[in-house]
């Protein structure tokens, strides 16, 4: 017995020498967005931005000594798929969710995430439907209704009197509110609604009939709350019909896809967005350079805000030692965080205030027209 009792510690020592030290358990963060199909520009860029932030944080030692692990899930911009993805993330030990990327899914999954005790930090959801609520939902993008109103006033100031709107009901929580705020501001300034076209982008096989309806309405301009690919297709059909009709757009289409898919037809589209594409901050310029070097293309607002969402979450997780318990409270009391677009701070409802901008496309590049304050 005596010999065995001496043998065991030696064997244990040998085992310790031979077995490499196990790294600490990772803290799992879920990512939720449309990663396939026509809306994948938002989801893929958001996921890539979040992945870059995770890599940076892990290179700097992780959160409370734990590495972060990002688990991307595809919600297909579908409420049912979104809820299933949140459930799966909860089962796989996620402590929080970065996402969703579209308002429709955010409104659908927020209660379920709350029931599972998951904090949700969205990079791009700007619907007012989730504003002013004391819940588990946070976002690094400001609420979007003010952008749409500003564009409605601008459209009137540009001398236009008849405007038609096109709204994608696949993301109704965002698009309907954008169209309503645009039209309210436009008509309040003396403008007239020429047509109100509501459709489901996913079911739209051709955009030529929409272009025909717009032209038949004798609208002098169009306001679109569509995704980048859909707006690009509509713009191309409008140009093909020979119409030089000005297009105003919500932030939804403000990604590289509008340049890639729209080409010259997208030239001159005016956007309102709560994001500064030409931000001169060294932190943003550095982020843009590193993102391009890492993924081979320029980041959009979805990528930048995806990065910021993980930054914010990591700081709050540092306070909870990587645990989900107390994370919502930690986010609420976080104080100012230095994001790549500038400092951001959650208010009591988990929302942020940031300046917003009007942009246009010139020579396949986004150009800032003016900065506006909320």
């Amino acid at each position: 017995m005596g010999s065995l009792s001496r043998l065991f510690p030696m064997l244990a020592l040998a085992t310790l020498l031979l077995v490499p030290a196990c790294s600490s358990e990772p803290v799992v963060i879920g990512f939720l967005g449309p990663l396939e199909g026509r809306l994948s520009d938002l989801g893929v860029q958001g996921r890539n931005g979040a992945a870059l932030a995770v890599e940076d944080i892990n290179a700097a030692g992780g959160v409370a000594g734990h590495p972060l692990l990002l688990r991307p899930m595809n919600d297909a911009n579908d409420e049912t798929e979104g809820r299933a993805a949140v459930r799966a993330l909860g089962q796989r030990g996620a402590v929080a969710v970065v996402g969703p990327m579209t308002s429709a899914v955010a409104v659908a999954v927020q209660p379920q995430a709350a029931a599972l005790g998951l904090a949700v930090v969205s990079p791009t959801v700007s619907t007012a439907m989730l504003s002013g609520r004391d819940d588990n939902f946070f976002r690094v993008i400001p609420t979007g209704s003010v952008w749409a109103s500003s564009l409605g006033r601008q459209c009137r100031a540009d001398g236009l009197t008849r405007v038609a709107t096109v709204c994608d009901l696949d993301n109704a929580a965002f698009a309907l509110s954008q169209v309503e705020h645009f039209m309210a501001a436009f008509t309040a300034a003396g403008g007239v609604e020429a047509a109100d076209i509501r459709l489901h982008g996913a079911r739209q096989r051709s955009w030529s009939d929409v272009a025909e309806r717009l032209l038949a309405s004798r609208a002098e301009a169009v306001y679109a709350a569509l995704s980048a690919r859909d707006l690009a297709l509509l713009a191309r059909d409008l140009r093909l019909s020979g119409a030089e009709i000005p297009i105003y757009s919500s932030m939804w289409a403000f990604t590289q896809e509008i340049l890639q898919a729209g080409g010259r037809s997208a030239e001159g589209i005016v956007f309102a967005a709560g994001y500064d594409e030409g931000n001169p901050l060294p932190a943003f310029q550095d982020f843009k350079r590193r993102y391009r070097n890492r993924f081979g293309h320029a980041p959009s607002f979805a990528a930048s805000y995806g990065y910021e969402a993980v930054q914010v979450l990591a700081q709050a997780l540092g306070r909870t030692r990587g645990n989900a318990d107390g994370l919502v409270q930690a986010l609420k009391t976080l104080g100012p965080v230095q994001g790549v677009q500038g400092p951001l701070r959650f208010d009591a409802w988990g929302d942020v205030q940031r300046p917003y901008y009007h942009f246009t496309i010139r020579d396949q590049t986004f150009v800032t027209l003016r900065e506006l304050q909320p």
Partner: protein
Amino acid sequence: MIARRPSLRSLMRTRLLPWMAVPLILLLAGLCVFLARSRLDGVREQDSLLAASLARYVENYLEGATSALGYLNRLHALAGGRTTMAAAVRSLQSDLRFERILLLDADNIVTEAFPAGRPGLDFPLYFPGSGERTNIISQPLFSAETGAMTIFMRHRDESGRSVVGELDLGHLQKHLGQFARPSLAEVIILTDAYGNVIAHPDEELVRRQANLGGLPLL
């Protein structure tokens, strides 16, 4: 009282055996590590040879595709007729390399599309940093026409006229898959220079534009 001297057997059991066991275990473990590393080195060498061969194959595949586009471009400059072009494109498409082929004028306007499309607009795809290079391959992107991930290739002649081909990545994947030996659980993955997945046996990763650039392997 004289203390009893321990027997040899007892010494072996209590002293020698435990102290011999540790170096023996370490020796065995070292031997195992050495053998495993030798085997791993062999696998790595084999893998790098296979990867080099595959890279050459993909290069040839893409060179063949751009040569074909160049041939079409020259034919377009010489003949130009829709019928001649359609026959040439059909012959090219018979090897299933391309989903779509577009003929562009020097102003980047689509003059012909195969299968038939709606000419008259510019070809919108932006090739960042392409400069004046003749042959360009785009990054992987979602095609609104086919609803799948794709890569565009372009051949441009001196006059600025171009032929653009939309690659069928499924076809490329099928070709690459033939090199993998399922019995050895081999997986062949093709990415661009940034780790963006172009071909992968798990098609979901292609559809989701997965990026493997963060893996130590890449």
